[in-house]
């Protein structure tokens, strides 16, 4: 088992393996997303409180879930890269950040659009999840800004790794703080997912969307990391050999 991980850490092995895995991730992700979207949009019963507007849940929740998962992936990969000095791990962290930021933006945008018919405003400071998502977006921006501000790539890797790990400790604290803060206002229950009890017809598409988006995220991440690895190793012998073999084939 350890040999698998050892080999995975080697860039050329990862590059070849990811080329084979990517299509599977993408295909299975897309299929699940199509199922979830169609089932959620047309076959799930309408929520008795929110009507058809609740169907936004099928994109909003996966986006929010992925925005946090991407941060965890980023922080863990950065930590592995920092502690065990694995260059590939740093590449994964670098690749996960922009994806995470996009999904955070998507969560905020869909949350805001969902809020307009529900609350009457485009933004509701009283909703703890929206506010925590906003802070998460700032964390992503800080990470990417630090990376681009440091010229030396190795130093950029390691400095941003420290930042990612410090941020990871803070993310649950931020969530807790914002929840406490918004509960002080005793506002109405905001986005109640699905209504009083989430029925199966509502739940399955949601699960499908979450898993599907996770798989798609995996494919997108692999794609970014491949580009990142190729760039970092552009002068390496294995790259040269691979490209020459490719052009000759």
């Amino acid at each position, binding site marked *: 088992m350890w040999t698998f991980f050892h080999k995975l850490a080697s860039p050329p092995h990862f590059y070849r393996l990811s080329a084979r895995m990517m299509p599977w991730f993408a295909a299975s992700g897309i299929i699940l997303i199509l199922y979830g*979207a169609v089932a959620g*949009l*047309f076959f799930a019963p*309408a929520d008795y409180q929110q*009507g*058809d*507007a609740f*169907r*936004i849940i099928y*994109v*909003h929740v996966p*986006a929010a879930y992925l925005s946090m998962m991407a941060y965890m992936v980023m922080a863990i990969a950065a930590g592995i890269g920092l502690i065990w000095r694995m260059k590939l791990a740093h590449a994964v962290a670098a690749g996960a950040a*922009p*994806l995470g930021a*996009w*999904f955070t*933006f*998507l969560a905020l*945008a*869909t949350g805001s*659009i*969902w809020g*307009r*018919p529900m609350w009457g405003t485009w933004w509701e400071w009283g909703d703890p999840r929206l506010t925590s998502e906003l802070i998460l977006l700032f964390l992503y921006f800080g990470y990417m800004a630090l990376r681009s501000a440091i010229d030396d790539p190795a130093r950029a890797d390691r400095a941003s790794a420290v930042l990612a790990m410090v941020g990871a400790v803070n993310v649950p604290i931020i969530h807790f703080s914002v929840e406490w803060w918004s509960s002080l206002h005793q506002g109405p229950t905001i986005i109640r997912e699905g209504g009083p009890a989430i029925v199966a017809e509502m739940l399955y598409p949601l699960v499908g969307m979450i898993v599907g988006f996770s798989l*798609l995220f995996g494919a*997108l991440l692999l*794609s*970014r990391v*491949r*580009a990142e690895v*190729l*760039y970092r190793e*552009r002068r390496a012998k294995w*790259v*040269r050999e691979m*490209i*020459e073999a490719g*052009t000759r084939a």
Partner: protein
Amino acid sequence: MIEKLAMGNYGLYVWSCYALTLIVVLVCSVQASRRHRAVYSDIMRRLKLKES
């Protein structure tokens, strides 16, 4: 059929969310593959320069 699509007056909101999601996913995949292709062709170019 149109009624189904209208989503009970919330159609604009629901569909704009789904469209936004589709756009973000497309942008991410296009970004990734373009970067990959750019790095790849850059390496090829440098190799050709070295050979010549």
